C-alpha cells in the first residue's frame, strides 16, 4: 500500500486537510461525546512512522533485550498476560486464569479464537513449547531466571495450560506474560541459528512486512487479529541514529512520532506551527535516576554522611534546570503512583545547613580552612562516575559537583564509556559513587538490585547494600500474592531505604512523546500511550500515506 507520493500530492493533501479541517473538528467533537457518529470517522488505513536510535537486534522475543526489538516484538507477539492501561494484570492470550489456594499452581484458560499470522490455530501446545525453549539452557535466554521456580508445565487440554511452582512466586503472573512463539514453525529447529529472528510469525496485531537493516522495519496490520483488525495499516520504525536529526525529521514530517527531550518539549515545540501538527504527551516513566554510594568505601559508611549528601543536592534545581521541570522528585526504588510507592517517607529537601551539621556530627570539619572538610587527616574528596554519552546525567553530575562543593565536599566527575563503566567499575565494585538510572519492571519485586544475595559477582547490588530486614521483606514480598500485604511490605522497604540513603534518589523523568495530530484515539494512562495502539486511527481525509 502506501506510496507517497510526490511533493505535489503532499501539498494537495495539505490543501484538502485545510478544507477538511472544519468537518474534522466538528466530527471530532461528536466523537468525543461518546454517543453516535463515531462509526463514520473510525477509518482504516494510513501508516504510523516512528524514529528509533538503533535498529532492532532480533525478533525472537525471548532473546531480545534491546528496546527497539522489544517495541517491534510487542506488536508482533502476545503473552499469556499483559498489563492494562492502569498497570493492572489482565489476560492477553489467556481469557482468564486462576491461582490455586497454596499459590503453587496457576491455570490459564486460553482464548479459542487466536490465529498465528500464517493462519494456524494457537493452542496450549505453543505455550508449553515456548517455556520449554526458554528454560532450555542451550538457548541462553536472558530472562530464564524469571522462570527458575517452575516445576512443571502441563497442557491440560487444547486451551488450558497449568504452571506448577516449587514455591509461591508472586511476580509469576506478570513474568508469564512473555511472548509466546509458534511451535509448528520452530519445533526441532536450532532457534539461535534460524531465520525466525528476521522472519517472525506471531499472534499480534501486526506482522513483519519488510526489514531493511539499519534503515527501517515495516509492519503490516494483521486482519485476523483476535481483538479485531487494527485501524492503522502500517507501523514503520525508521532508524535514525542521531537524536538531533530525529527532531529535524519530526518537524519536517519524516516521522510521525518521537520521544522529545525536556528542552524540546518545553521550548522548541511550544510554537503554533508545532501545535497545529502534533500533540504532546507527558507521563511519568518507569525509571529513576540516582547517586549510588559504594557502601564498602569508608567515606560512606556513616548513614549521616549519606543523608548529608542527600540534603545538599538541590533536586529542584536539577529537575528545573536539567529536566526543564519535566520530572518529579524520587524518594525510593518503586514506581511512583503504584501501590508499592510510599509517599510518607523521610525526604531530603535541599538544605546545605543541615547537611553541614550532619557532617559535623559525623566528624567532618574543615580544619585547615581550604574549603574542604577533613576527618582524621583525610579530605572529603571522591570520584563521582557516570556513563559517557548521556548528556542529562553529565549535566546532573556537573550541578551536583557544585552543590557538594558548597558544603565542603570535593568531587571529581569522570564519565566513562559504557563497556568499561560496567566491567571495570560496576562489576568490580571499583568506584566510590556513581550516577545511574534504573528502569523498573512493573512488579515491585527488586531482589536483583536490593537483596544482599545480589551483591555476589555480577549481581546488580553493586553498592553492597546489606540490611537483614530488607532482605527478609524482599523474600516475603515475592512469595506473597495478597496485594494489601505486598503493599505493606514494599512500603516498608521504601521507608527503610529512604531513611538509610544508600542511594540519593534523584528524580523520575517524564516520558515526553509527541505524536502527529492526525492520529486519533490516543488515551494517555499510567501505562503510557501505546497500550491501545490498535485502536488508534486516522480519519480518512487526514490520511497521509494512502493506498
Amino acid at each position, binding site marked *: 500500500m502506501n506510496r507517497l507520493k510526490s511533493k505535489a500530492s503532499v501539498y494537495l493533501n495539505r490543501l484538502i486537510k485545510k478544507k477538511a479541517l472544519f468537518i474534522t473538528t466538528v466530527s471530532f467533537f461528536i466523537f468525543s461525546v461518546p454517543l453516535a457518529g463515531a462509526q463514520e470517522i473510525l477509518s482504516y488505513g494510513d501508516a504510523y512512522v516512528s524514529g528509533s536510535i538503533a535498529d532492532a537486534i532480533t525478533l525472537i522475543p525471548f532473546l531480545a533485550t534491546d528496546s527497539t526489538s522489544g517495541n517491534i516484538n510487542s506488536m508482533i507477539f502476545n503473552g499469556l498476560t499483559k498489563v492494562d492501561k492502569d498497570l493492572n494484570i489482565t489476560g492477553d492470550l489467556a481469557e482468564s486464569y486462576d491461582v490455586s489456594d497454596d499459590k503453587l499452581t496457576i491455570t490459564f484458560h486460553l482464548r479459542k479464537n487466536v490465529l498465528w499470522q500464517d493462519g494456524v490455530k494457537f493452542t496450549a501446545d505453543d505455550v508449553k513449547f515456548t517455556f520449554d525453549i526458554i528454560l532450555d539452557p542451550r538457548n541462553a535466554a*536472558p530472562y530464564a531466571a524469571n522462570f527458575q521456580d517452575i516445576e512443571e508445565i502441563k497442557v491440560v487440554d487444547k486451551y488450558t495450560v497449568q504452571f506448577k511452582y516449587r514455591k509461591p512466586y508472586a511476580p509469576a503472573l506478570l513474568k508469564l506474560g512473555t511472548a509466546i512463539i509458534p511451535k509448528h514453525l520452530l519445533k526441532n529447529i536450532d532457534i539461535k541459528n534460524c531465520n525466525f529472528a528476521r522472519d517472525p510469525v506471531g499472534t499480534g496485531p501486526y506482522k513483519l512486512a519488510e526489514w531493511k537493516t539499519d534503515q527501517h522495519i515495516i509492519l503490516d496490520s494483521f486482519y485476523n487479529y483476535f481483538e479485531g483488525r487494527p485501524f492503522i495499516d502500517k507501523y514503520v520504525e525508521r532508524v535514525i541514529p542521531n537524536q538531533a536529526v530525529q527532531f529535524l525529521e519530526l518537524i519536517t514530517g519524516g516521522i510521525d512520532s518521537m520521544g522529545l527531550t525536556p528542552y524540546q518539549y518545553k521550548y522548541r515545540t511550544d510554537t503554533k506551527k508545532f501545535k497545529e501538527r502534533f500533540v504532546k504527551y507527558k507521563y511519568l516513566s518507569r525509571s529513576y535516576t540516582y547517586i549510588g554510594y559504594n557502601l564498602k568505601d569508608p567515606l560512606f559508611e556513616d548513614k549521616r554522611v549519606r543523608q548529608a549528601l542527600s540534603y545538599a543536592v538541590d533536586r529542584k534545581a536539577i529537575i528545573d534546570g536539567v529536566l526543564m521541570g519535566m520530572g518529579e522528585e524520587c524518594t525510593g526504588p518503586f514506581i511512583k503512583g503504584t501501590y508499592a510507592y510510599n509517599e510518607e517517607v523521610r525526604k531530603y529537601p535541599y538544605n546545605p545547613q543541615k547537611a553541614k551539621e550532619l557532617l559535623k556530627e559525623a566528624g567532618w570539619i574543615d580544619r585547615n580552612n581550604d574549603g574542604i572538610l577533613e576527618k582524621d587527616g583525610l579530605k572529603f574528596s571522591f570520584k563521582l562516575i557516570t556513563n559517557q554519552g548521556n548528556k542529562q546525567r553529565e549535566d546532573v553530575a556537573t550541578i551536583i559537583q557544585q552543590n557538594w562543593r558548597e558544603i565542603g565536599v570535593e568531587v571529581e566527575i569522570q564519565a566513562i564509556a559504557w563497556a568499561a563503566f560496567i566491567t571495570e567499575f560496576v562489576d568490580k565494585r571499583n568506584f566510590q559513587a556513581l550516577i545511574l538510572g534504573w528502569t523498573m519492571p512493573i512488579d515491585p519485586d527488586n531482589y536483583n538490585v536490593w537483596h544482599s544475595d545480589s551483591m555476589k559477582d555480577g549481581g546488580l547490588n553493586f553498592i553492597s547494600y546489606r540490611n537483614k530486614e530488607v532482605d527478609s521483606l524482599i523474600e516475603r514480598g515475592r512469595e506473597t500474592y495478597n496485594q494489601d500485604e505486598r503493599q505493606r511490605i514494599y512500603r516498608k522497604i521504601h521507608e527503610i531505604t529512604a531513611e538509610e540513603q544508600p542511594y540519593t534518589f534523584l528524580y523520575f523523568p517524564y516520558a515526553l512523546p509527541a505524536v502527529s495530530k492526525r492520529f486519533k484515539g490516543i488515551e494517555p494512562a499510567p501505562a503510557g500511550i501505546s497500550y491501545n495502539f490498535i485502536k488508534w486511527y486516522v480519519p480518512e481525509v487526514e490520511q497521509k500515506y494512502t493506498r
Partner: protein
Amino acid sequence: MFKYIVKRLFLIPPMLMGISLIALLAMHLTPGDPASMRYGLNPEVSGSARAHLKELYGLDKPVIVQYGGWLKRIVTLDFGDSFIDDRPVIEKIKERLPATLILQISALILIFSIALPIGVMSAVKQNSFFDKATTFLVFVGFATPTFWLALLLMRFFGFQLEWLPISGMSPWYAQDYSLPHRILDLLWHLILPLFTLAFTGLAGISRYTRYSMLEVIRQDYIRTARAKGLKENKIIYHHALKNALLPVITILGLTLPALIGGSFIFETIFAWPGMGRLMYTAILQYDYPVVMGVGIISVFLTLTGILISDILYAVVDPRIRYE
C-alpha cells in the same frame, strides 16, 4: 613485474593475520565483554545468564584458543557469527556494503573529477588568482569538521528550506517505485552526503595533482617540447598531463581504508546504512567476529587497491620496473 605481483600476493595472508591478531588482542585487553554489553545493567537479567552466554560463545577459553578456532574457520572463508544477534558476519557485511560503496565510490568519482582539473589548472596557472582561490578553498574543505558541515547543511537545506531529504538512503515507502524513480530518489538522497564528503575531501587529490604537475612541467622533455615550438596547450595537455597523472593513481589505493570505515560518524548523521556504523557498534559492543571480519575485509580491499594501482602504474608507464 610478475615476480613483484607474486611477492605482494604472498604478503597479503601474513598481513591479514597480523591485523586480525591486533584486533583480537585490542578487544581482549580492553575492559568489557560481549555478554555484559548485551545485557548491560538490566535489572531483569541475572548474573548467571551473563556467565552462561560467555560459555556459549567460548569466551571463557584463553584468547589463543579462541584465535585458533577463528583462524581455522577463516581459511574456509567462514567469518563466524556475530555475538550480538548470532547472524553470520558475512551476511551482516553484505547487507551494508552496497550502501557504503554507492556513497563512497560516487564520492571518489566526484572528488577526482573536481580535484584533477583544479590541480592541473592551478599548476598551469601557478600563482594566478585561480590558483590562490582554489588553494584556499580546498584548504577550507580540508579543515572543516565533516560532521559539523553535514549537520549545518542538513539544518539549512533539509530543515529550513526543506529542499532536500534530511536523512536516510531511500524512503520507507519506496519499495514499489519503478527503477528510474528509485535511481532518481537515490540521487536525491545522495546530494547532501556527497557534497559534504567531496568538499572536505578535495584537498588530498587536488594538491597532489598540482605538485605532480608542477614537477613535470619543470622536466627537461617539456622544455624540449617548448623549445621545439610546440603549442603550449598541446604541451600541457598532451605531454605533461599524462605524466603528471601517473603518480596520482597510486594515491587511490591509500584512500580505500577511509572509504570502508572512515565515515561512520557521517553515516550516523545521515542515517546511512553502511559498514562504518556496523563496525562502530561492533567495537562498542565487543562483537569480535564482526570487528575482525570488517577489519579483514577492509585490509584486503586496501592491499588489493594498492596492488592494482601499482600494476596500473606499471602498465601505463613502461619505464617502471618493480623489483
